[in-house]
């Protein structure tokens, strides 16, 4: 029960940051793909600079998690075709609806009910991938 509260708290924190930073705004995503502001690049870039530093500190010091276990960060599955093709498909959608998965739910919380259509579409898309994956280049 206490763990559930921790995950919930982290999620609430995530939601607040994404909303207040405007990373959940369709307009900001459109602006980003037009290279008409540094804002989104600043968010992603600064998250990455700190993220890389954090991961290096974790690895070099063999940092342990709250349970005393060494923090293990799994390698991503390799595959040039899947990551590139999948990435492009994702990017097309991200720009069209101005939301990636996290912001879809944050916007739902903010009251933009038509995002439910987007979420439904994402569930369908996920399902289609499961059905079609063996026919796709990976």
């Amino acid at each position, binding site marked *: 029960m206490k763990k559930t509260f*921790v995950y919930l708290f982290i999620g609430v924190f995530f939601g607040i940051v994404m909303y207040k930073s405007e990373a959940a705004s369709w307009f900001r995503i459109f602006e980003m793909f037009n290279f008409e502001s540094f804002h989104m690049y600043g968010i992603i870039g600064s998250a990455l600079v700190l993220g890389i530093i954090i*991961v290096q500190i974790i690895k070099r010091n063999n940092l342990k998690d709250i349970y005393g276990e060494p923090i293990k960060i799994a390698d991503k599955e390799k595959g040039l075709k899947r990551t590139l093709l999948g990435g492009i498909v994702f990017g097309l959608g991200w720009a069209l609806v101005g939301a990636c998965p996290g912001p879809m739910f944050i916007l739902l919380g903010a009251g933009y009910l038509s995002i439910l259509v987007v979420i439904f579409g994402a569930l369908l898309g996920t399902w289609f991938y499961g059905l079609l994956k063996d026919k796709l280049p990976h």
Partner: protein
Amino acid sequence: MEWILGPWPWYVSGPLIAVMMFALLYVGKSFGVSSNFKTLCTICGADKTCDFFRFDWKAQRWNLVVLLGGIIGGFVASRYLSHDQVPAINPKTIDTLKGYGLESAGASYQPMELFGKAAFSDIKIMFLLLIGGLLVGFGSRYAGGCTSGHAISGLSNLQLPSFTATIGFFIGGLIMVHFIFPLLF
């Protein structure tokens, strides 16, 4: 604490996202939102339709809780931590969008043409939202992650697959905005 009510600058938001990633690592988990769609599909019965959805979804409940937190966070931020926040986007961007018929550019957080109540009575808008969602859902599963899993977590771990995925995200976004939007709007 008036500054909280305004938009948060990138140099505060970005680092906070990295802190959040660390918080998840510290509790033995990881930052990756799109896998929740796979879990939700399984909960809806997709495991009866193919192998991909046959996995121990209960082990992924923690991520659904994070997602629920995200919904609450959106609610709290928009209702209690903001006074009608409108992203101060580039005037050039506003001009382009008004040229597309999106009059709400520069006047609201989200384009009301797509996300306001009027959207529900426009079949074209509903279709675009559905297709967009479909592309995000399909693409993130195909790529093995979305912006959180690849662009933030994966790149923080210097993973090459995350680099190609992120390149893909941008290629897709640029194609949509520069070649397809002029045809759609």
